[in-house]
């Protein structure tokens, strides 16, 4: 007799526990307001990334097309993957001195692991992260980017 009671108890407990689970899923089914899906490409306009989001490395230029990169190569040294390559040139400043300056700051997005060491160690704060995250391109060569804009110059007062 006792075993039959145990048997029935087992069944009742089992069904009850199953109902508990169904309660959870059922309650979500009838509450569509809890849906968390974002319709991504449609909500591009409203989608705001956090300001610290590490999208890709950029070199901010001001309106006079000037940047802060002196071409010291510390970012290149600190990069663990060889993402950054700096090609420098020698220019003659206004007062006639010869000076090393940056020709091309090459950044290979495909190799970057977003460790932020370059941005962190740059002595003149020339690099920053942008919030763009849509990096997909059809040609791998497009992932190799030159960060300084053509014709740009070193900002005044940055050594």
């Amino acid at each position: 007799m006792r075993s039959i009671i145990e048997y029935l108890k087992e069944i009742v407990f089992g069904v009850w526990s199953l109902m508990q689970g169904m309660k959870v899923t059922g309650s979500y089914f009838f509450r569509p307001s809890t849906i968390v899906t974002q319709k991504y490409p449609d909500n591009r306009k409203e989608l705001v990334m956090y300001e610290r989001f590490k999208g890709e490395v950029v070199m901010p230029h001001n309106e006079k097309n000037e940047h802060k990169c002196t071409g010291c190569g510390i970012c290149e040294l600190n990069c663990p993957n060889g993402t950054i390559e700096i090609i420098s040139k020698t220019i003659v400043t206004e007062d006639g001195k010869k000076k090393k300056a940056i020709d091309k700051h090459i950044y290979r997005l495909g190799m970057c692991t977003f460790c932020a060491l370059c941005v962190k160690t740059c002595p003149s704060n020339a690099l920053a992260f942008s919030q763009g995250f849509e990096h997909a391109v059809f040609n791998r060569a497009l992932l190799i980017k030159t960060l300084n804009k053509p014709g740009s110059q070193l900002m005044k007062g940055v050594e």
Partner: protein
Amino acid sequence: MPFDIYNFTSFTQWIDSSLHNAMSPFWTALTEMVIIGVLVLMFYAVVGLFLVYAERKVCAFMQNRLGPNRVGPFGIFQTIADLVKLLFVELIPIKNADGFLFNLAPFIVIIAGFMAIAAIPFANGLHAIDMNIGVLYVIAVSSMGVIGVLLAGWSSNNKYSLIGAMRSGAQIISYELSVGLALITIVILAGSMQLSVIVEAQRDGWFIFKGHIPAFIAFIIFLISSTAETNRGPFDLAEAESELTAGYHTEYSGIKFAFFFLAEYMNMFIVASIAATIFLGGWMPFHVGPWVGFNHIMDFIPPFVWYIGKTFFVIFLMMWFKWTFPRLRIDQLLTLEWKYLLPINLVNVLIMAFLVLMGWHF
């Protein structure tokens, strides 16, 4: 009777007799077969596609998602897009597979579904055949699908497929018993195996209400065991995604895979409609004994709507199970059948027989 406005008997008989007048009996039978075949095929495709969409939406809402929402408004054309994709997908030939059986398996699965549909009464007078052993026929035919599953698993030359097929064989053979016994309970109550008679007997109350607790228990057992028979979660051991990748249809691609996929949903539809027919009154409207006005209003809802509504209620229950519970293990699955469902069922049949004998049912 008011719901005779929705009676299709005269309509179908008119088609039959006019065909008889025009042709010889042989050609009449052939024409009727073709008409019914085409209709069932279309019905199959439409219901299959809709169920896939419904399942996706239901599970998405249960999981706090939106589900398909790109193709068409609310993504209603998503399954059609998927079907078109599946039609164009390459059929990958499997090395060392038994080609004949490999190609045969999806058809067996699908044909089993077709045959079962034939006996289901969609509305008053709207069914392909009204056999006097309808329930037996449905049980017999719906278990034919397992042959397809076994063939698919065996001929794929894949170890996962074989394990899946063997599991499916063990599972369906065991759960067949419970399905049968659960239906027998109602057959005892109705006194007939003819589906149209069973529906007709529920005119003044569905069997789930008429048959006291035994009918309700039979309904629950039928739900559980028919879920198992259609290889759906939590009994989807035959395909057990996280263990056997896709079980018996691992090696299938393209339209052959689509057949299996469609057959799964059709089987669900068939067992749901059997449940609706036998326990929930089929196309019979919902009646409450003495409320004549209420019953009258209910009668004006077409029987086809009643039938579809009940079927989809059962399908929703089955989806709810699938998306809530974890999967059982094969030995637990068999334990559930042999240690719980079967004994309860046997006792249930006895009680029901006793109730009918004493005339204690409504």
